[in-house]
C-alpha cells in the first residue's frame, strides 16, 4: 500500500462509484438476473480501476464505464448475434392492427395491465443488438449519439434497431396478452 495507491483509489471512488446504479440498471436489464448483474458490475469495476490511472483529464467517466460494462457483458454473456429478419418486424397481423385502432389511450391500455415479468421477459428475450438499444434508450435515457457511440454504429442503424426492437416487443406482448385472454375478439 502506498500514498499514491490510496490517492488513486479515493479519486476512482469519487469518479466511478456514483455511476454504479446506472451501470447496474443496464447490467440487470441486459442479463435479466440480479446475480449475473452483480458479477458483471464487479468485473467492470475491477477492470475500470486497473485502467483508471491511464485515463486523461476530462474523460467522460460514465461513458467509459458503460463501454467497459458492455465489453464485459459481451465476453461473459453474449451468444452468437441473432439475426432479426425484416419480415419478423414489419408484418403485423390484421388482429394486431385492429387492436391498435381500438386501444388509443396508453394509460388504459391492456399492455399496462400485464404483469411486470411479462415485459421484463420480453425484453430479455430480444436479440442482443435490439435489447441493447432499447435498454439504453428507453430505460437508461441515452441519446442516439450516445447509443451510436456505445454500440459503435451509425445513428441511422440505432434508429432502425430501436424501431425494430419496439415492434418486436409489441408483437411479443400482443401474443402474450392474447394467450392470457386479455384481448377480446
Amino acid at each position: 500500500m502506498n500514498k499514491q495507491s490510496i490517492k488513486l483509489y479515493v479519486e476512482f471512488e469519487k469518479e466511478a462509484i456514483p455511476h454504479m446504479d446506472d451501470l447496474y440498471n443496464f447490467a440487470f436489464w441486459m442479463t435479466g438476473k440480479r446475480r449475473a448483474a452483480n458479477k458483471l458490475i464487479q468485473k467492470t469495476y475491477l477492470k475500470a480501476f486497473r485502467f483508471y490511472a491511464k485515463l486523461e483529464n476530462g474523460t467522460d467517466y460514465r461513458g467509459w464505464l458503460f463501454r467497459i460494462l458492455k465489453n464485459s457483458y459481451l465476453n461473459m454473456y453474449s451468444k452468437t448475434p441473432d439475426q432479426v429478419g425484416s419480415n419478423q418486424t414489419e408484418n403485423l397481423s390484421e388482429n394486431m392492427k385492429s387492436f391498435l385502432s381500438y386501444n388509443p389511450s396508453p394509460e388504459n391500455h391492456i399492455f399496462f395491465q400485464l404483469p411486470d415479468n411479462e415485459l421484463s421477459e420480453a425484453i430479455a428475450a430480444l436479440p442482443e443488438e435490439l435489447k441493447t438499444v432499447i435498454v439504453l434508450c428507453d430505460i437508461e435515457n441515452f441519446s442516439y449519439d450516445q447509443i451510436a457511440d456505445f454500440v459503435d454504429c451509425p445513428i441511422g442503424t440505432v434508429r432502425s434497431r430501436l424501431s425494430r426492437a419496439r415492434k418486436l416487443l409489441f408483437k411479443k406482448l400482443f401474443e402474450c396478452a392474447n394467450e392470457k385472454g386479455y384481448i377480446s375478439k
Partner: protein
Amino acid sequence: MGDKFNIDLLAALIDGEIEDPKIKSELESFITSDTEAATEFKIQSLIKNLVRRNTGVVSASPKLRRRVQKKLMAEVELPDATVTLKPITQQYISYATVAVIVLALILIVFNRPPLSDDYNFAVEQTGADNMFIQAQFNFQALLNDQLKTQFKSDSPEMIKNYFEKSGVKYSTIIPLLDQMSLSGAFVSDEFGDKFAHHTYSTPEGKLVYLYQVNEQTLHSGTKIKLTKGLIKYIDDGGCYVYSQGQTSTLIVKVKDNIFSVVSNLPRIELKETFCNIK
C-alpha cells in the same frame, strides 16, 4: 413518403431526436395522412411509454457496493482493519476516507489534550461499530457533502414517520429546539438493523447532527457499541462532551435512547441545548 427510412424516423420523432422543424412537421403530416405511418407511430409510442413506466430503476444493493469496495481495496492492498470499516449509512462512503479520518482522530487525540471537563472517555472509543466514532465520522461526511440526508423535513412527526417506514424499530425522539431548525434525516443499516439520524441547521449556518440508538442495543453491544465506562456515566445521568477544534461531540441519555450529537456550534451552546433535554 413511406419507405423504410422514413418509417424509422418515427422512432426518432418519439425520442425527441428530430431537431429540424421542417422534418418534424413533414413527419407529423405523414402520420395523419398515412395509415401505415399512424400504426407505426402508435406502436413506437406505446412501447416506449410502456417500457419507460413499467421498468423501475434497479439499483446496486449495499452488499454489492461493499463487495466492489473490498475488491478494489484488495487491488491497492489496503489492510484488513480498514476493509472492516464498513460504510455505516445507506449512502456510499469511502473506506480510505474512513481510514484517514479515524487515523487522524486517533493521532489528534493522543497529541493534543481534549477540552473535556470529564474523564477522557473519547480516547477509549475505537472501532467502526462504535457510536461515538460513527457520529464523528458521519458529521465530517455531512460537512464535506459526502453524505446527504435522504429525507428533508422540518417536521418532527414526518421525520418520525420516515424512520418508522424505513425500518427503525425503536421509538425515536426528535427534539424541537430554539435557535435551530430541523433539516433532514437518514437511516443507516448495521447488519440488517436500522438506525436513526437527523440534522438541524442554525441561522448562522452551523450544522447539528444527532444520531440516536436505543439503550438496549448499546447495552447488548452486539451491533453498535460504546465503552462500558461511558455507558455507565450517561446511565448515571452524565452528559459527556468532547471538543476538538471547532467540533464538539456530546453523548447523553434521553428517555430510552442514547443521543450522540456532533456539531460545529460552540461547545457551551451545544452543552446547554442538549444536556438539559429530558
